[in-house]
């Protein structure tokens, strides 16, 4: 049990998938212009990443037993695309309220590297099923924390500061991310038990 909590907490802090492993940068930079959008995207990512992590684990076991692991990229990406498509249809039909709040972000998620990365990382690290679930949920929440923090800072910055012309927009977002990332490195060595 303690190892599962540790995986969860460290994927939120010192193994944060956005700020330490530098994944999912395209949507992180593109959508972090306002806190509202960042929240919508963050929640959508949490849903999809947790779900695909849980679905891909048994599929990888199946590939292992048939010794076709070299096909894993292809199988993972198709699973992800299918899950996203299915989730979109399911939400539109049964939970239209939820669909209206973050449905527009769903199609963007197929090309979010976080989703595929979580699947590739649990393969590399030999996680068990429960560990995979904890890791996928923790990583996606970590990503959501990162995008909301960045969006809050950028929103304030465009209102109050006078930046050099070439630095406005995306370039300054990188500098802010660098500082955030430094702060998250401060969590290294955190131990709970």
């Amino acid at each position: 049990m303690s190892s599962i909590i540790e995986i969860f907490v460290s994927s939120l802090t010192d193994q944060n998938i956005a700020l330490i492993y530098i994944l999912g940068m395209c949507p992180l930079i593109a959508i972090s212009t306002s806190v509202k959008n960042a929240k919508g995207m963050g929640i959508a990512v949490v849903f999809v990443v947790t779900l695909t992590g849980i679905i891909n684990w048994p599929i990888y076991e199946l590939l292992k037993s048939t010794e076709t692991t070299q096909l894993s990229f292809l199988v993972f990406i198709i699973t992800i695309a299918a899950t996203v498509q299915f989730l979109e249809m399911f939400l539109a039909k049964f939970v239209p309220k939820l669909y209206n709040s973050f449905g527009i972000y769903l199609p963007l998620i197929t090309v979010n590297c976080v989703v595929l990365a979580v699947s590739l990382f649990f393969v590399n690290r030999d996680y068990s099923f429960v560990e995979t679930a904890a890791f996928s949920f923790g990583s996606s929440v970590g990503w959501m924390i990162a995008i909301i923090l960045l969006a809050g800072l950028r929103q304030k910055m465009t209102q109050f500061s006078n930046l050099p012309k070439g630095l406005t927009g995306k370039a300054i977002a990188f500098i802010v991310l660098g500082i955030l990332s430094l702060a998250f490195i401060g969590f290294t060595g955190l131990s709970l038990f």
Partner: protein
Amino acid sequence: MKLIRVKYTKWYNILKDGITRNNPIVIAVLGICSALAVSNRVENAIAMGLGVTFVIMASSLTISLIRNIIPQRVRIVTYMVVISTFVISVQAVLQAFFMPIADALGAYVGLIITNCIVMGRQEAFAAKNPVKYSLVDGFASGMGYTFVLVVVAAIREILAFGTLLNVQIMSVTWENWVVMAMAPGGFFVLGLLIWGMREALKYYENPEQTKS
């Protein structure tokens, strides 16, 4: 005289734009995950850049060949299947001949699939243009990406390890900047590089756009 005429052909323009005005990293800010994560050593950056260039060119070629028979509705999935096939072959080649580099890149080779540059070029160019131009366009985007990757990696490797391609170039007393080998170093170097290149290309973002 011939040289001057070459300058104005479509080939030359596609190639030049890919590296400067349409540079995927500096202008569109796409595909940065891998650009930051593997750019702490120049050799990794070169391997990654060449891998991405190969994947873009090969999938542009394929998509461009079959562009008239792909149904509009399933085109994204088609791109994904084509791209992942080539990424699998890149990983197989790396593991067979360049084991240390394959280890250093780790899961990031697989993440070429979700590199937005590859997908973006298929959607924006290869699906609409004939094979020869798609190949040149793929090469140009790949080179624009490789160029930025190698520059970032060179700065980071010199500052973080005092070496360039594993050759010691700083004096022995050089104090390594550990932070440059980690994530924040990548963010800072790329942020400043984008600033510099945008200043040089006179490309500015409209602050009103980013406000909403």
